[in-house]
C-alpha cells in the first residue's frame, strides 16, 4: 500500500473520471490536481455538471476515478478493496448529504451512535458522546425523536453531529443546505464553521449556495470537470 507522511488530508493527483452514457463518453473530471490541508474549510462551487459531486464522491471513496491517484491522510485509496475502503470511511471521513441523511428507523441519538457502534466504541462512551454532540448542535432533548419527527434543519444538524462525533480527519458535505430555508441554512453554516474552528475538522463542501461560498475559507470553482479558479478567502 502506498502511504506517505504528510499534513495534507486530501491529495488528488491528475484524477479524471469518464462515464459511459450509451455510446457517448462523458468526461466528468479531467486531470484534477487538488490538495487539502488539515483544518481547511473549502467550498467547491460551479454550475450543475461541473463535477463537484463527482470529485466529492472520489475523495470519499464512494466512486473510483478512471485515472489518477487520491491520498487520504497519506494513504492511497485506489489500492483499497471495498472492505478497506469502508474502514477508511468509517474512521477518517464524515459525510453530510443533501437529503436522506438519516436512517428513518433510528432515533436522532441512535443515528449519531451508529457510526461509533460500528467503530466498536462501548455503549457508555457512545451515550456520553452522542448526548454531548447533540447539545453542541442545539438538539438537546430531541435525542429520542426519529427523523420524520424532526424538521429539515434539525435533521441536517443531526447529520453534522454524526459526521463529526468520532472526530474524523475530513467531513465531506454535498449540498448540505440545498433543502433548507435561508435562516436554517445560515445556522447550519455557523455550526459547520464552529465545528471546523473548535475541533480543527477539515470540511469540503460542494454547493450552489452563495452564503456558504462567501463564508468558506477557500473557494474552489469547477467548470466542465476542471478547476477553473481557487480563491483563498481567509
Amino acid at each position: 500500500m502506498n502511504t506517505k507522511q504528510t499534513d495534507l488530508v486530501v491529495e488528488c493527483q491528475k484524477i479524471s473520471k469518464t462515464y459511459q452514457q450509451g455510446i457517448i463518453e462523458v468526461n466528468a473530471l479531467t486531470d484534477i490536481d487538488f490538495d487539502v490541508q488539515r483544518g481547511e474549510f473549502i467550498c467547491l462551487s460551479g454550475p450543475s455538471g461541473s463535477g463537484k459531486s463527482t470529485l466529492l464522491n472520489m475523495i470519499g471513496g464512494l466512486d473510483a476515478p478512471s485515472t489518477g491517484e487520491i491520498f487520504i491522510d497519506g494513504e492511497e485509496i485506489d489500492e483499497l478493496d471495498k472492505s478497506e475502503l469502508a474502514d477508511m470511511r468509517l474512521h477518517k471521513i464524515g459525510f453530510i448529504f443533501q437529503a436522506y441523511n438519516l436512517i428513518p428507523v433510528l432515533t436522532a441519538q441512535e443515528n449519531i451512535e451508529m457510526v461509533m457502534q460500528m467503530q466498536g466504541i462501548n455503549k457508555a462512551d457512545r451515550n456520553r458522546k452522542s448526548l454531548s454532540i447533540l447539545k453542541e448542535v442545539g438538539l438537546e432533548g430531541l435525542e429520542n425523536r426519529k427523523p420524520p419527527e424532526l424538521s429539515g434543519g434539525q435533521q441536517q444538524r443531526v447529520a453534522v453531529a454524526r459526521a463529526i462525533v468520532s472526530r474524523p480527519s475530513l467531513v465531506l458535505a454535498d449540498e448540505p443546505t440545498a433543502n433548507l430555508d435561508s435562516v436554517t441554512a445560515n445556522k447550519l453554516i455557523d455550526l459547520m464553521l464552529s465545528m471546523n474552528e473548535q475541533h480543527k475538522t477539515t470540511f469540503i463542501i460542494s454547493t450552489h449556495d452563495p452564503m456558504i461560498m462567501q463564508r468558506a475559507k477557500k473557494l474552489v470553482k469547477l467548470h466542465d470537470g476542471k478547476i477553473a479558479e481557487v480563491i483563498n478567502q481567509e
Partner: protein
Amino acid sequence: MTSLPLIIALAWRNLWRNKRRTAVILFAMALGVWAMIVTAAFMRGMALQVLDDTIDNLTAHIQIHHNNYLDDPVIENSFKINKTIESALQHTDIINWSNRIRVPAVISSERDTSGLVLLGIDPEREADLSFLKSSISDGKYFSGADDKGIIIGKKLADNLETRLGKRVVVITQNTRNEISDRGFRITGIYDTPTEGMETGFVFMTRRSAETLIGVSDLSSEIAIITRSLEHVDPVIKTLKSDLPDLDIQSWQTIQPFTQLIVEMYGDFQYIWHLIVFLAMSFGIINTLLMTIFERSREFGLFQALGLKPRFILMQVWIESMFMLTIALIIGNLVSWLTVLSTGDGIDVSAFAKGMEMAQLSNIIPFIIISEDLFLANSIVIVLGMLTGLYPAWRASRLVPANAITRV
C-alpha cells in the same frame, strides 16, 4: 463483528417499517407453511389409515401359509401347527398371532347366493388381532370356540336379503373334493367402511369350519402381529430360518397396493412442499427486492458511513430470516389448531365409492408427526435462507455513489 447487534436491530425495525406489506407477505408465507403441514397431516393420516386398515383387515403384519396356498387356496394346501411352529411363534417381538382356516365358499340365503371367502377363526386370539370384534354392529361376537353361529357383513346381509337370527347355508369343498354344506344361524353382523370387505368374508369358529370341511387341526394361515412395523423384517428373517418349509410373507408383499400408497405419500410430500415453497419464494424475493429498491439510498448511506458490504448483505438476509421465522411460527401454530379442530378426522363419505376404491375409510384423520413437521420446516428454513441471499447480495453490491443519488 461490532456491527452485528446494530444490523440485527436494524433488520428487526425495518421489518415493521411497512407494516401492511409485511403483514401481507407474512400471511402469504404462513399460508404456505400451513398448506404444507396440513396437507402433510392429511396425507399422513390417509397413508397410516390405509396401512392400519390393511393390517387390521385380516392381513396382519406377517402371514404364514403352506407353500402352495397363495397359488391355490384350497384346504389341501394347509398345515398342522406342530411344536416347531409353536416354538417359532414364541419370538419375543411377536405380540399376537392367530391361525385360521380360509377357504373359498358360497353362501346362500332364502333369496340369493354369493361367492366369498370363509374364515374359521379362533375367537379369543382373533379378538385382538383383526377388526371383527370391534366392527359388530348387530348381534354379538363369538362367545367361545364352540359357538356355532356365523358372522356376516352388513352389505352381504342386504344383498342376500337376510338378517340377524336367520339361517344361511354355506357350501364349500371338503378334503375329499366333495361338496360339503351346512346351515348356520346368523349371530352377528359386522359393519366396516369398505363394502368389499362386508361382501367378501364370512366368519365362523375354527371348530365349525373344521366340521364343515371335515378336517381336524389344520390351518390355512397364521396371521401375526409384531411389536411394531420396524420389527416385521427381523421377525420374518427368524421365522424363515426356523420354518423353511412354510411360506412366510410380510404385509408389503401380501398387499402391494398398500405399500405403493405409503411410498407414494412420501414422494408426494416432497413434491408438494417444493411446489408450495416455490410459490412462497417468489413472495420473499419480490418483497426483498422491492425493499432494496426503496431503500437503495439508505444502503448507499450505510456504505458511505463505513458499513462493510458483508454487513449490508447480513442485514437484508437477517430481515428475511425474521420474516421466515415469524411465518413459520404462525404457520405451525395455525396448522396445529387446524388439525386439533378436525378431531377424529374429516368426513369424506360423500366420496364413499372413490374412497373404497382407494382402500380408504370415510373418515380421514389428520396426523402430524415430528418427521413431517421437521421436513416442512426444514425445507422452508433451508430454501428460505438460500432465497434470501440473492436480494441481500444485490443490496451489498450497490455502488454507494449511485445508490445515494438514486431517486
